[in-house]
């Protein structure tokens, strides 16, 4: 039973009628659709900020946040909840609570991980003044952060978190996801324009140029997967990657064809650009544009942009997992998980999905803290002269691969998908579908190496002669 039905049932129960067009739908939609998204996505996005600081610290051999835990929050909770008791009594109770087995360890862990920063930063942002610069276009300026957050959160409505955890069953959810995430472009442009600041304006303009351009490789990469799967429904795409047997991961799109692997790489790179991460963080470009489009923002509005950025990263990770890494499915032994009770199955799926998303998340952070930023023209050149042609090449290759009889859609655990017409050349076709693209890739790599030439001897010597 999917949650979509739950909404229906809830609406009927609330209104006492079969008429779905009722106010209760709105309430139900919020309770059942939006609240779970916020409950799953929001904490992960918030945790992402701590994670980012920890990853940065690890890359730079620092400690990162390691002192702020939940001690203060705990004390505050005791003070507030037990306000009717004298202070000494509260302290004794607090001490008794802390003496419970495991509590001290948990508090220590929270401190070491700097988890309290979530609360501290939240309170800090709430406490800051909500400033609108005198030269700003007030309405546009104020509206932009909400739009950014909306654009980042909406695609999650159609995201299959688990087989039974899809908020909205949209038959074209892949299209829906990229369509609504496009709202973010508008938000960044509004922020850049509305701030009345030249650096913001440049940042906003860069954001628009970049995100509009990079939406094309993203869309093309998704289109490649759609071609392969024969469906635009993310949930069906995930289901189609199901492989019976123990080694479920062999069914993942990433491993189905070299062209799909290429599309995965392109999707990830273009996704990085879509969420404005280094090496594509043109719109923020701290050392050039101060802080780019969000230079003038402070407090909670700035926080919304930060949250939107991390949510966008989650979105790219979630799409990547769904399109190429089998979505919520386990890498091994998925066939057993589907036989578990629904709640346990959903929980396992959700955890697996979050794990895969976090893997992309960590990869994005690692990249950010390792690479320098590209220049504006280089970003554009990469998109139009490298990624888009690669996508088109991969699309043509995929089409031929499918025609040659590869990529037979296996039966999913939950039913079969309609088969596409095939030109079956048997083993020969399958072999060619792998050998030809790999040979092509080898030629391309050799050509690229030749064109870029060798490192200067001085550079090789500086890197210990092994560059």
């Amino acid at each position, binding site marked *: 039973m999917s949650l979509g039905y739950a909404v229906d049932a809830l609406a009927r129960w609330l209104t006492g009628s079969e008429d779905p067009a009722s106010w209760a739908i709105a309430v139900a939609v919020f309770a059942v659709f939006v609240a779970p998204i916020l409950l799953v996505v929001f904490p992960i996005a918030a945790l992402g900020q701590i994670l980012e600081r920890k990853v*940065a610290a690890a*890359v*730079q*051999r*620092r400690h990162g946040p390691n002192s702020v835990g939940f001690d203060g929050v705990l004390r505050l909770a005791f003070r507030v909840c037990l306000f009717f008791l004298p202070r000494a009594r509260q302290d004794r109770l607090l001490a008794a609570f802390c003496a419970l087995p495991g509590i001290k360890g948990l508090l220590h862990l929270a401190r070491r991980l700097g988890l309290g920063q979530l609360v501290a930063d939240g309170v800090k942002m709430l406490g800051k003044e909500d400033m609108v610069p005198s030269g700003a276009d007030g309405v546009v300026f104020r509206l932009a952060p909400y739009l950014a957050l909306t654009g980042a959160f909406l695609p999650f409505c159609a995201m299959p978190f688990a087989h039974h955890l899809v908020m909205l069953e949209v038959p074209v959810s892949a299209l829906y996801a990229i369509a609504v995430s496009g709202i973010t472009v508008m938000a960044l442009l509004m922020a850049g324009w509305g701030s009345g600041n*030249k*650096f913001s304006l*440049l940042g906003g*303009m*860069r954001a628009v140029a970049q995100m509009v351009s990079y939406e094309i490789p993203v869309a093309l990469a998704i289109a490649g997967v759609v071609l392969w799967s024969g469906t635009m429904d993310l949930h069906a795409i995930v289901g189609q990657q199901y492989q019976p047997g123990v080694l479920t991961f062999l069914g993942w799109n990433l491993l189905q064809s070299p062209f799909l692997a290429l599309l995965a790489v392109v999707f990830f790179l273009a996704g990085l650009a879509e969420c404005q991460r*280094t*090496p594509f*963080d043109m719109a923020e*470009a*701290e*050392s*050039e544009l*101060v802080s780019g489009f969000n230079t003038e923002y402070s407090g909670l509005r700035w926080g919304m942009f930060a949250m939107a950025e991390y949510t966008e990263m989650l979105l790219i990770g979630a799409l990547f997992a769904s399109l190429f890494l089998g979505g919520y499915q386990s890498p091994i032994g998925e066939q057993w998980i589907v036989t578990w009770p629904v709640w346990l199955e959903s929980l396992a799926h959700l955890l697996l999905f979050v794990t895969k998303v976090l893997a992309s998340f960590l990869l994005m952070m690692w990249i950010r*803290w*390792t*690479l*320098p*930023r*590209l*220049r*504006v*023209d*280089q970003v554009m050149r990469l998109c139009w002269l490298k990624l888009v042609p690669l996508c088109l090449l991969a699309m043509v290759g995929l089409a031929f691969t499918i025609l040659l009889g590869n990529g037979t859609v296996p039966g999913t655990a939950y039913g079969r998908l309609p088969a596409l017409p095939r030109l079956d050349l048997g083993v020969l076709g399958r072999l060619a579908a792998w050998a030809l693209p790999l040979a092509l890739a080898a030629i391309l790599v050799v050509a690229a190496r030749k*064109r*870029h*030439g*060798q*490192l*200067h001897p*001085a*550079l090789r010597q*500086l*890197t*210990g002669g092994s*560059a």
Partner: protein
Amino acid sequence: MTPAGERMTLNLGPQHPATHGVLRIVIESDGEVVAACTPDHGYLHRSIEKIGECVEWPLFVPYTDRVDYVCAMNANLAYCVAVEKLLNTSAATAVQVPLRAECIRVLVAELNRISSHLIGVGAMAMDLGAYTPFMHGIAQRELVNDIFERLCGQRLTYNYVTIGGVGFDLYAGAEAEITRFFEQFEREMVRFNKLITTSTILRDRCAGVAPINAAEAVAWGLVGPNLRASGVDWDLRRDEPYGIYGQLGVRVPVGQAFAGKNGVVGDCFDRYLVRLLEIQESVRLCREVLKMLPPPADKPTDPVGGFQADVKRLLVKPPKGEVHCRTEAPRGEMGYYIVSDGTKVPYRVRVRTGSFTAAGIFHKVMRNIFLADVVAVIGSFDVVVPEIDR
């Protein structure tokens, strides 16, 4: 290109994360392209030269720290060498710096050159969006600072080199500590270079950006690594040696279009890489000096094993006259022009610094380049604003 009236004026600095302090550059931008720019200096002017006319000879040394606080040892050294040159103009006041002091001077100057260049290349990488190399560079700089702190009690403004020698002798175990530092430092630099120097993005960002050819570099008075990056083989430590540099055989790296495919001699990448090569050379020089360091003598003024010639009496009545003395600081020639009227206070102290001339060519090279390149160019020249304004 849009006509002048439709261009946008952009104030880069004085408060901007990429301008290394309070450098201000007024950019006339045509969208992302910089049509023209005007550097505006003077935000960090502290009248250091005027102060020089008001304090006694040895008391000016702490002020030289503030001329370039990223390499205060070299700044101390430049002034002290100049005053010694002045004293040596008369046989009556000639000063003989002890050999051990000379060795220590080279040691601290080269160590400080290393830590200064680490800031230079690290900050440039940071300007290009890579924050991590900067942190790794800073970590190594901190280790140098640890050594300096044990040597003279300071981590930034050392006030260590004095007229006639150095302030203190090396602490016990300093040689071993410096040797140990170099061992891990060389490993770290290999990691640093693998992380950022060989990065294709960095080379693509810097290759062919703001190239300055040798003739231009000389004509605009560039000095130090910025001059050498343009292919001019000139280093005062080798060509006009002071102290014991003459005995060390300094090897001078020059720009050779290191970036590869799109590289031009004298582009941003050459300026970046010449600094990294100089770091290597400095490590070698320090090792040489450690080999020839004489053992300490009981008497501080001992001509071989001492660390400080007795100049107190000489500085009360130095010879009249003027002297210009230049030394090779990390940011290029640091020249002191000193006029003495024979009293215990200098008549005039004039400082000529590398960042000053580097800032002079900004408006010429920052034309028709991308806005993002502007920060790369500033970073590649490694200017330190207090050195421009003084």
